[in-house]
């Protein structure tokens, strides 16, 4: 199968490459299949999640461990069961990024990660309850090496 993307033009993929979100993402319940595209071979910190059902819809996501190794999302038992996982640590997490002119001003949504079971290639977007993670953390609060603020205070958050 092929899909036309803004970033790569025509991309060939197999059904096995897709990640299936049974409920879609928040605000996009009808789009259930996404093709993860690495922007650069060997760099897994930034991944484009491209809808295969609507070529106009894609999300830039980041592996939160690449900039915030202390990120520890904890899923509810019913969420773990939907993803056929025993433990939150068995799953992969990607956070959606809002792009700004300066990449340090980009914000990441740590409260609503895409959670994927790499074994079954199924995923869901969750809202982490009772956590101090917010919808908009400035990326610069994590990746600036000089910064004392690792983003685990609410300083980078505007929830």
């Amino acid at each position: 199968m092929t899909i036309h993307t803004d970033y790569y033009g025509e991309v060939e993929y197999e059904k096995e490459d897709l990640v299936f979100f049974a409920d879609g993402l928040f605000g996009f319940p009808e789009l259930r299949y996404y093709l993860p595209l690495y922007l650069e071979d060997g760099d897994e910190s930034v991944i484009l999640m491209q809808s295969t059902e609507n070529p106009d819809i894609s999300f830039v996501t980041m592996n939160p461990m690449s900039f915030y190794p202390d990120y520890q999302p904890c899923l509810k038992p019913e969420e773990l069961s939907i993803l056929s996982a025993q433990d939150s640590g068995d799953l992969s997490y990607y956070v959606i990024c809002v792009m700004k002119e300066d990449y340090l001003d980009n914000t990441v949504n740590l409260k609503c990660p895409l959670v994927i079971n790499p074994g079954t290639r199924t995923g869901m977007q969750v809202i982490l309850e009772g956590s101090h993670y917010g919808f908009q953390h400035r990326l610069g609060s994590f990746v600036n090496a000089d910064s004392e603020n690792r983003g685990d205070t609410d300083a980078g958050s505007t929830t």
Partner: protein
Amino acid sequence: MLVLRRKKNESILIGNDIRITILECASDGIRIAIDAPKQISIIREELSQAELANKSAISPASSSVRSFQAAMARHTQNTDASMSAQSE
């Protein structure tokens, strides 16, 4: 803002056709039941925020995505370099 104290199984009425009943109180949250006409939308506030957050993130320009990727790659290299410098 109106603030009321209610106990388990007590209700409040909003207008003529919305009733909110407290079903259960616990330290980690309360359960409430809402009776309202079908045309009234009821969602958890976080869900509405989550939808808005996703909508503000869709399909950024490919040029900004590429420059972002390049910047992150540089950052990763710098981090790796400083880590190996520390370990020496």
